[in-house]
């Protein structure tokens, strides 16, 4: 029997209602989706399937906020105020064909806030530990930052060391080699970067993401662990911790 083209076609109708106010206020486009056929496409390649939480730590003034800003906005902030608190940024990147949403927490570097900022480490999948290549003291403090990072995150948290302000070669106070060695001794990824020129900024965030993704692939990072810092999204076809979103598909009829 062919379907009697029922007028009440169930839940999907609701969407219309839900989205409609959106249309009125902000998104003319949304209404297009709803009222126009054109919007549908066979695939949804722009969805992301993981969320990684990152933290950026390091002494005050080393350029943490500038790195975040450069990464999310592709701009350099010459007169960036001290961070007194914790700020966020997000961006979607692609690793091995997987879309990943990075949720980045930029913390205050000032010593007096240290006790408070420690509480933000929990559940980070990646940590960017930043020093300023023109200020030796910021490099000397790394061990204390590293101790915090190790103690307050899980063993699988990927830590990348970043020597920032690489554009100020003339004022260099920390050589590439010694930092590289420090990184190797402590099992850290390492890059020199410049939030000003943008050099290696993208890479810094990507390298860490690659490493995290690799840990997921080879099973060393357990997504079920509460503090893995990674959320697997239901929309991802591989299926993760969360059960898949439904794809109710009506049977084609009469053919």
């Amino acid at each position, binding site marked *: 029997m062919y379907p*009697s083209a029922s*007028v009440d076609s169930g839940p999907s109708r609701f969407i219309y209602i839900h989205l409609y106010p959106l*249309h009125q206020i902000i*998104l003319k486009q949304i209404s297009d*989706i709803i009222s126009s056929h*054109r919007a549908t496409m066979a695939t949804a390649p722009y969805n992301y399937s993981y969320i990684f939480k990152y933290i950026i730590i390091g002494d005050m003034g080393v350029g943490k906020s500038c790195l975040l800003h450069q990464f999310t906005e592709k701009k350099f902030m010459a007169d960036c105020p001290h961070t007194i608190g914790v700020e966020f940024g997000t961006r979607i990147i692609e690793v091995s064909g997987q879309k990943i949403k990075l949720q980045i927490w930029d913390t205050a570097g000032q010593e007096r806030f240290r006790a408070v900022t420690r509480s933000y480490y929990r559940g980070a999948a990646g940590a960017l530990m930043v020093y300023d290549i023109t200020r030796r003291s910021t490099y000397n403090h790394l061990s204390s930052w590293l101790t915090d990072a190790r103690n307050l995150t899980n063993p699988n948290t990927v830590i990348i060391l970043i020597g920032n302000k690489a554009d100020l070669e003339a004022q260099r106070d920390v050589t590439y080699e010694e930092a590289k060695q420090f990184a190797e001794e402590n099992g850290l990824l390492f890059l020199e970067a410049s939030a000003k020129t943008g050099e290696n900024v993208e890479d810094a965030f990507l390298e860490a993401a690659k490493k995290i993704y690799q840990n997921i692939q080879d099973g060393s990072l357990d997504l079920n662990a509460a503090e893995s810092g990674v959320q697997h999204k239901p929309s991802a076809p591989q299926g993760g911790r969360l*059960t898949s979103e*439904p794809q109710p598909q009506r049977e084609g009829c*009469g053919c």
Partner: protein
Amino acid sequence: MDQSVAIQETLADGEYCIIAVQGMLCEGDSRQSRLLGLVRYRLEHGGQEHALFLYTHRRMAITGDDVSLDRIVPVSRDFTLEEVSPDGELYILGSDVTVQLDTAELSLMFQLPFGSHTRMFLQEVARACPGFDPVTPDPEFRWLSRYRCTQLQSQLPTPHGWNSAPGTWPGCARIGGGRYPSRNGLWGLEEARSGAGSVLFGGGAVDQTGLRLAEVARGGGPLWGRSGRRGRRDEEVEEAGREMSAAAGSRERDSAGNSHFDDLRPNGKGLLVDQSSWGQDKPEDLLPRQNKSKSEITDMVRSSTITVSDKAHILSMQKFGLRDTLVKSELVQKEEDYTYIQNFRFFVGTYNVNGQSPKECLRPWLRHSVEAPDVYCVGFQELDLSKEAFFFQDTPKEEEWFKAVSDCLHPGAKYAKIKLIRLVGIMLLLYVKEEHAAYISEVEAESVGTGIMGRMNKGGVAIRFRFHNTSICVVNSHLAAHTEECERRNQDYKDICSRMQFCQVDPGLPPLTISKHDVILWLGDLNYRIEELDVEKVKKLIEEKAFQTLYAYDQLKTQVAAKAVFEGFTEGELTFQPTYKYDTGSDDWDTSEKCRAPAWCDRILWKGKNITQLSYQSHMALKTSDHKPVSSVFDIGVKVRNEELYRKTLEEIVRSLDKMENANIPSVSLSKREFCFQNVKYMQLQVESFTIHNGQVPCRFEFINKPDEQSYCKQWLNANPSRGFLLPDSTIEIELELFVNKSTATKLNSNEDKIEDILVLHLDRGKDYFLSVSGNYLPSCFGSPIHTLCYMKEPILDLPLETVRELTLRPLWTEDDGSQLENPMEIPKELWMMVDYLYRNAVQQEDLFQQPGLRSEFEHVRDCLDTGMIDTLSASNHSVAEALLLFLESLPEPVICYSAYHNCLECSGNYTASKQVISTLPTFHKNVFNYLMAFLQELLKNSAKNHLDENILASIFGSLLLRNPAGHQKLEMVEKKKAQEFIHQFLCNSP
């Protein structure tokens, strides 16, 4: 923070927490925080069921460990969740949304935070409610059985008990009480747990921030108007005042810094909406919901307004579908950037075969053009006129005609069949050249029967698909027959248009209709006839090939001109003779009894841009049927993607969404972030204020606890308000109130605590701001231990801080060594000063210790004592008396040490034993005790004047000198009595 993640961790396989919101469960006057999670369960045989899971939780649930299940409410047919307006309360912008949850069994009231997240939640719940279509089975909720308390399992009714039986709805009669147990029954997991508020939401702190809604509303001022704050301040002062008052026995209260404001709470209904704005755009096809409460939900949903920032909010929420939707819509907007138009050749044919099987080759019809078409759309009507075909939807003719067509497609290309759809005798076939098959997507086919019962042999079938970036819908219809049924034909057309619905790839989107396609090709036996001319006249005009003249009498022409049918469609010029009705096997007009007039029954129309008709003709060579087949060839401009440009556009869009998301993280500016409180004194309120100015994103703010801390700030500090909601560009003033009382003074004296704190101001979904508080505290004898004061021979403020610190930290029992070395005083000089003052001025004072003192005078007394300027002391007797009581109350170790407390109570009534206990006290404490008793006895000598008696003094001093080591607990009456009795003995007997 999406708390559904935490909930998800507690769920079983197959259960999915769609969305969670945190709200307040209101029961009477109590408010308890609950996390509400909407959980979906996907059934094995298809379909889904929902339940609302209620959890108690820690402040902000991050992992499954932070939540514990309290109750489950299955979303059954009788489930409703509606927004309600609490009685008598005003609507307040930005305040909480009150919702009422009802099932046949229970009724709960929640306050949910105002905002789009709550809207989303309510919308999701509305979607989850089972439909009212009696055909769909009732949800059974078998999956919830794992949450059931096992011991009650046996009482469970059959699963059908969850809902009213389909037949009885909406009477709801069958579900009466007790079927599935409500509050304390099967679904109330460990009811006791919910009462154990200890882990909930930072305890009372959350509710402290009061605002008096009515007043705010009247003033029309900012959300958190001054009145709210003033209310708080009054209370603070009152607190302090009460602390001053010496009314005996009323002293075991919380410290002033922790005042309770239980009576003030945000409430009311918050709607930022223009209720009327919906109506204009109401979608026509919305069915009235059959249940009133449901329709209220939809109304509510409609009425919610979402502001610009919510777009970002939506993005930041883990609602992936929406992000997709946004990307798609942007892609549609920018389609021109990455597509170009390319022509493809379409062959469209229609043939009413009058129930015949293919007897001749179809080449003359299908293969008449030189060039091979890219796409073939071939439609038939009256494929099979037998009853079997009608009733069983099965006919051998389908295969026969399919083969006949397939065999006769253009030899210049290889074709792939995309789709075949048939409704009784109406069949539509779609082929494309093989090389195009990869660019065909989203193919859907549907059919609609028209006529009585929608099951007559008339109706239409359609195939919709996407060719490159262009959406195309091909419709083949067979409309009502007979000249006089013109209206019927129009109606059939409309029915097909409105009822033909294709489901979308994204199940969340509404079904597509025919009209929502770039290109529509409509073919078929439309059955429109030639009117007003008699048969002979028609035939004559045909003979003369006066098609133009004849066309004027064509019903389709006149109906289209009257906009009664096929609006917006185009048809090519008719240059061929009518295709109906011939004697089968010939080109002769119908010679049967009925002798039908010739008519252009078989037609092809189109709608859309970039369509050029190359030919439109009939094919007289085919004689199988009483109709002639018709064909038309089109060049159709199809939007083809430039892959490189497409990628670029897509990346730009994704990038801009990222940006927007970042830009819409709530952000505020603070007028001040460093707060310095200079020279803080005991029990003297200091206030520093600052303003929060919101950016463009509405947000909630809240001071949050640092890890391992009980409160968002030190005990001596309070932020007012400590949380709230900010509209875009609005400002709120926050006051930081510093007040040192007896419970915080000692540690400030000893420097174990400092006037130093960092407050974390958290924006929901946004940044955190740190506020630094610093300052210095002026040590005071108030809050200092007795023995410490005995060692201080100079006024406390004349001593170096380091000395104060050392002396304060000195243990109680080290007096022996100390006494030799430092020659301490026998009792604190400050105590002596106050008692001496009273002795000299107040022994005859009426109502001494029973009248409250003045706050300003207390501050004066305190300063005199702490600076040693006793000579300048001038205050009313009552104020000094009150200061004395406050002094005794603020002693960290009471005069009768905690360790002796229970002994004292035990031997009260036995004076000898009591004296024995007193003799075991540390010397300084013993001295103070005896000194005070002597003073009190002195007062009693003047009882004629001062009206004091032993009972009054015993009750006032009993609770000050004897304090329960367990702290601020309310004392048992017996205990109080015994403490009084104990003191009483010493007042009656000489030492």
